[in-house]
């Protein structure tokens, strides 16, 4: 069992000033599976995701306590090399944020951070990651255009490709399809299903159908607490907690 867990979250508490955003979170995130964090808006899903790659450092008002252990290392310990650590994780946010450069450079920038500078290799890998994100065929002739000219759905796939280009082990996705049209959403979901063989994926969503379609494991959160967690069958077909039943039944969201 030990081996199959990629991320262990232990007694994680997050405070914003006097309000507590996350309360005693304990989650095991398995390797090479899609773990969906489910819950209504404002329940702390996004904050939880930001703890995982310590983007919480950017918000001085947030105080984080507890442990997040990835491959035996507590990443919340101050001495960890935060920049290396973030490269183990690709991030896909609610709406795409391409870097202010060309399409090509969005990927090659990530490669450079990884230390890959050889031009031929960069070239090969840019193509590889764009293919992996199902984007290559659409934009192969537009690589030198600014990334801002792509459609939102294409931008999001570019961000996925860029996230993959740092060669992470984990993909963190924060409602990555919420700003997208149905077709782009489907492409992203399909990419995730393909990618889970090589990556551990943590997906935050409030879309029940999406969770049911692609999740292996589900964590249900409500107002800063983890209410229930388990495999997708356990949580969806046989929820134990009253709140989970209500949420799945559509009583509140």
């Amino acid at each position: 069992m030990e081996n199959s867990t990629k991320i262990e979250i232990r007694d994680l508490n997050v405070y914003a000033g006097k309000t507590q955003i996350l309360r005693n979170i304990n989650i095991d995130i398995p390797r090479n599976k899609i773990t969906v964090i489910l819950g209504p808006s404002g329940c702390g899903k996004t904050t939880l995701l930001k703890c995982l790659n310590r983007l919480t450092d950017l918000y001085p008002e947030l105080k984080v306590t507890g442990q997040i252990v990835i491959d035996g290392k507590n990443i919340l310990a101050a001495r960890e090399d935060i920049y290396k650590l973030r490269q183990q994780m690709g991030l896909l946010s609610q709406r795409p944020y391409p870097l202010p450069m060309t399409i090509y450079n969005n990927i090659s920038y990530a490669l450079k951070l990884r230390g890959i500078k050889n031009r031929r290799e960069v070239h090969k890998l840019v193509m590889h990651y764009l293919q992996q994100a199902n984007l290559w065929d659409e934009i192969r002739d537009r690589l030198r255009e600014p990334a801002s000219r792509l459609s939102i759905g294409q931008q999001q796939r570019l961000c996925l490709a860029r996230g993959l280009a740092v060669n992470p082990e984990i993909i963190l996705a924060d409602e990555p399809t919420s700003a997208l049209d149905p077709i782009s959403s489907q492409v992203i979901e399909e990419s995730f299903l393909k990618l889970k063989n090589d990556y551990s994926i943590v997906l935050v969503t409030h879309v029940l159908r999406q969770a049911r379609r692609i999740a292996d494991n589900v964590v249900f959160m409500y107002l800063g607490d983890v209410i229930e967690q388990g495999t997708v069958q356990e949580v969806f077909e046989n929820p134990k907690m009253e709140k989970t039943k209500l949420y799945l039944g559509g009583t509140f969201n």
Partner: protein
Amino acid sequence: MTRAQKTEEKFFKLLMIIATYFIFAVLALIIYSIFEKGIKAISWAMLTQIPQGGYYYGKEGGILNAILGSLSLAFGATVLAFVIGLPVALYLNVFLIRHKKVIDVIRFLLDLVWGIPSIVYGAFGFSLMIFFRLQTSLLAGILTVTLFILPIMIRSMDEILRTVPIGLQEAAYSLGSNKSEIAFKIFTRQSISGIITAILLSFGRAIGDAAAVLFTAGYTDHLPNGLLEPVATLPLSIFFQLSSPVPEVQNRAYASALVLTLIILIVSLFSRGIGKRYHKTKINF
């Protein structure tokens, strides 16, 4: 809407329209009077010659000394202020992100020194010169004007860098970029057109100010001749010519003002051109 609300709406709308057109009319009048008086006096000789003997009595010569003096002074000060100012603005927005109170204090202090009249900078520069036993010179002028435009440069770049969305920063951090990468690759690229505007604004202030250079840069009828020699500047040239009792010389003051205005116009257009070229990679959110 009730009738009272409608009247109120009409009244304020009218007020805004009047204010807008009034200001526009005043600006147009200023530019018109500069052109009207300046065009008559301006000549090729004025742009290409230095003052000859008797220039200030209406005889031949020009203001090339002041044009070149002002350009070199403003250019030097703008470059220096940019080289110092950009790192400060980046430091505030990238490195101090966890220290909001420190940022607030620094911003407040910068806003405070922004408001200090340029004559005070002139006096300060003058006392520095005495301390270092410098005479009035291009160097002393550049240093004083740099101090004077630094708050403007820093705060206007700062305001632009502040608008870089947190999501973009998160995206860049999540790739493993360190803070200098974020500062120079992400912030500056995303804000390039605003940074150019900040440079332009500072250049305009630098070239147009008379008080800061009055004691520090001095004045000369010769062309700029090295950092340690005094230089002429357009604002002072306008001042001297306008104080002359000879009407032709007074008209030349307007011609000089016209030259100053045109320089600023050309610099604006040029910077906008550059800004547009880099603007296309900016991400609009």
